[in-house]
């Protein structure tokens, strides 16, 4: 349990010391209801309504099994949003692949796109934007990031605390199977090599239908005020959910592991605790409301099982413990905070990459520029022919953009805009951007540029940018050069947010995107959320069509 919980993926042990800046440099905001440390940041958009959003990576699993890796990436981020008390209302997918003509891209890209579509479409979540970038740097490490945004009434915000000794711990959703055992520690916390074939069992299969039922059941429970605390099961499965909920409340917990519904009866206790089977949530409910909770679950056809209870935070002067038994044998007896909060914190060595000076010597100003009309034509044709600038509809046509009936702008617009309130027209705009090549040249400014691009994309729709989420995709933190890139990017993003006056509300770090000694370009992906008072006022890209657009004047703003 410790090896899983203290893995890079769960404990953020290499990144923690840097990520602190997001809090320290945070501009004051009276909109933020939940921030870093929660499943996702929550932002008030008026007195009654709030929005929660977050972007997360599923890079390694998507390389091993593109369809399921990408699909379960969507499923995971959706549960994060759900856990905050929100109804998920849209998704976005920033993607990066190797060279467009490489055979691995031909295997990975169609599978990833089909997986994102397959899961998101089946959940009924419109896809309102994303990115498709090709660069040889991602050859062995494609980046599959997924963003989800959800809406909640301000007073429906949920906590993950396992509060109230005597309350019941309920596991809801899919049965627990052997899939994904050790997924986080194995897949996401090490570089890829030929040994990865032996890691096949850690592949998980998504079941979007079960997730859809889980969403509806959770929302009905929230609205009936039947939930004390809730946490999604993601990386590190039950181990993570049990310890985090107990640690958050400072309570102890008693769990009877044999009560967990299993797909395979032969599973061992450690497998049950480590399984990353998808589509599960952990609920803390009051004993007198247990029947009502089970009733709602039954109505939606999802399994719900009482597996334990919350115990006092202190027993005879000693802090509460997480005690787990398996058929009357004590298999776990630990202080929950030791797993969830007391993980190691590394200040890893950092060193500017040796080749950076050489790279930076090639200044843009000194590069040859097209001097003749023929040169210009050739440059233009090369750009038009570049996979990075091509039409993305082969991808975006595989995504449902209409479901829920509130999509005001989506592909090919600069930002997605969705209506949140049908009566007032209140809505939000969202964009995700990143540029690994900029960040490779200068991670500090590269991160700022990603932020600025995303911010502009939101602003041009007519929305006011209010919050930031991010997914930091980097190589191995054990490489001082990568660690330096990471530190610089975080510093850049935190400074940029301070200058623009919007807070980082959450995000995700993906390390070990590395093949052998070669790391990917540092790739901070930044998502910005904006609020628009009336979506009818949104400004689409493109000129207004005649006759209304006739005679419009064209201005160029900026330098």
């Amino acid at each position, binding site marked *: 349990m410790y090896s899983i919980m203290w893995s890079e993926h769960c404990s953020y042990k290499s990144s923690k010391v840097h990520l602190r800046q997001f809090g320290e440099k945070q501009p004051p905001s009276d909109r933020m209801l939940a921030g870093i440390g929660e499943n996702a940041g929550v932002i008030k958009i008026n007195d009654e309504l709030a929005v929660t959003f977050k972007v997360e990576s599923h890079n390694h699993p998507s390389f091993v099994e593109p369809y399921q890796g990408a699909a379960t990436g969507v499923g995971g981020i959706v549960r994060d949003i759900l856990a905050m008390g929100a109804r998920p209302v849209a998704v976005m997918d920033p993607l990066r692949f190797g060279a467009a003509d490489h055979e691995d891209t031909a295997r990975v890209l169609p599978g990833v796109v089909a997986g994102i579509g397959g899961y998101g479409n*089946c959940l009924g979540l419109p896809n309102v934007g994303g990115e498709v970038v090709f660069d040889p740097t991602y050859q062995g490490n494609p980046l599959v990031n997924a963003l989800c945004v959800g809406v909640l009434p301000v007073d429906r915000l949920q906590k993950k605390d396992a509060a109230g000794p005597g309350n019941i711990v309920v596991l809801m959703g899919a049965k627990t199977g052997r899939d994904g055992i050790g997924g986080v520690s194995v897949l996401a916390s090490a570089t890829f090599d030929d040994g990865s074939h032996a890691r096949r069992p850690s592949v998980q299969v998504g079941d979007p239908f079960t997730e859809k039922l889980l969403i509806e059941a959770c929302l009905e429970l929230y609205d009936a005020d039947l939930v004390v605390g809730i946490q999604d099961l993601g990386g590190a499965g039950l181990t993570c959910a049990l310890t985090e909920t107990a640690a958050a409340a400072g309570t102890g917990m008693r769990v009877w592991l044999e009560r967990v519904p299993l797909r395979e009866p032969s599973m061992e206790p450690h497998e049950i605790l480590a399984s990353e089977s998808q589509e599960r949530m952990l609920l803390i409910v009051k004993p007198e409301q247990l029947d009502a909770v089970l009733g709602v679950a039954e109505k939606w056809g999802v399994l719900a099982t009482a597996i334990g209870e919350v115990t006092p935070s202190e027993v005879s002067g000693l802090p509460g413990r997480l005690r787990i038994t398996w058929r009357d044998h004590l298999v776990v007896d630990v202080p929950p905070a030791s797993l969830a909060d007391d993980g190691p914190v590394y200040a890893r060595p950092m060193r500017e990459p040796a080749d950076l000076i050489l790279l930076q010597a090639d200044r843009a100003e000194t590069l040859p520029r097209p001097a003749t009309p023929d040169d210009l034509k050739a440059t233009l044709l090369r750009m038009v022919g570049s996979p990075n600038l091509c039409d993305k509809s082969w991808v975006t046509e595989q995504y449902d953009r209409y479901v*829920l009936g509130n999509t005001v702008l989506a592909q090919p617009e600069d930002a997605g805009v969705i209506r949140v309130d049908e009566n007032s027209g209140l809505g939000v705009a969202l964009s995700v951007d990143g540029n690994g090549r900029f960040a490779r040249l200068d991670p500090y400014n590269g991160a700022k540029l990603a932020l600025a691009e995303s911010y502009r994309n939101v602003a041009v729709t007519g929305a006011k940018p209010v919050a930031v989420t991010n997914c930091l995709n980097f190589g191995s933190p054990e490489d001082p050069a990568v660690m330096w890139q990471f530190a610089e990017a975080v510093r850049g993003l935190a400074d940029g947010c301070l200058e623009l006056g919007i807070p980082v509300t959450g995000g995700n770090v993906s390390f070990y995107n590395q093949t052998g000694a070669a790391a990917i370009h540092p790739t901070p992906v930044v998502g910005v959320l904006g609020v628009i008072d009336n979506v009818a006022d949104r400004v689409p890209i493109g000129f207004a069509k005649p006759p209304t657009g006739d005679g419009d004047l064209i201005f160029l703003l900026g330098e």
Partner: protein
Amino acid sequence: MSARVGVVTFPGSLDDGDAARAVRVSGGEAVRLWHGDRDLHGVDAVVLPGGFSYGDYLRTGAIARFAPVMESIVDGARAGLPVLGICNGFQILCEAHLLPGALTRNSHLHFRNRDQWLRVHASNTAWTNSFETDQEILVPLKSGEGRYVADQATLDELAANGRIVATYLRGNPNGSERDIAGVTNEAGNVVGLMPHPEHAIEALTGPSLDGLGFFTSILKHLAGASA
């Protein structure tokens, strides 16, 4: 009193809220129906909405067909109750044998979401009487299994008797036989449509307002029937 149009929610239905909104925007009263409830609550017509009922895991619509509410809908439809199946609803109507043929995997094997031009051929059904015959309309299509198939005799019969409700224009998006986007039963009360008219009812969120015609049609049809 405005007409009461039921919208069924199966586990995995996704466009049920949108179908209800379309009914309301058109001036009808939307009544939500639950898959497990046989009672149709006295509705005058029923919409089976889009989505992935029961995950659509075995075959689209195959499991939804056995939902308790479907027993009442099948009985009602045989007795003249107007029923519109959109996308997954169309698939369910075929599986329930209220409409002929079947919907299979798109010939290119991908889910496809695009704004699709259609030609409305049958403007005499309960759900299409607001359209002119041969009217061209623009409505979103979004499906992975939208390729309509039936044997040649059935296709000939549908064509001969004006039962092809709509066909795809300017390119067949999924390989459907004879470009079929929607069909009706002999009596014209049951219509299945692969594209999504409920997503073309507001300038802000859809490519056109053409989808409204299906919902105003049913209100007109019901008003005519009760007059």
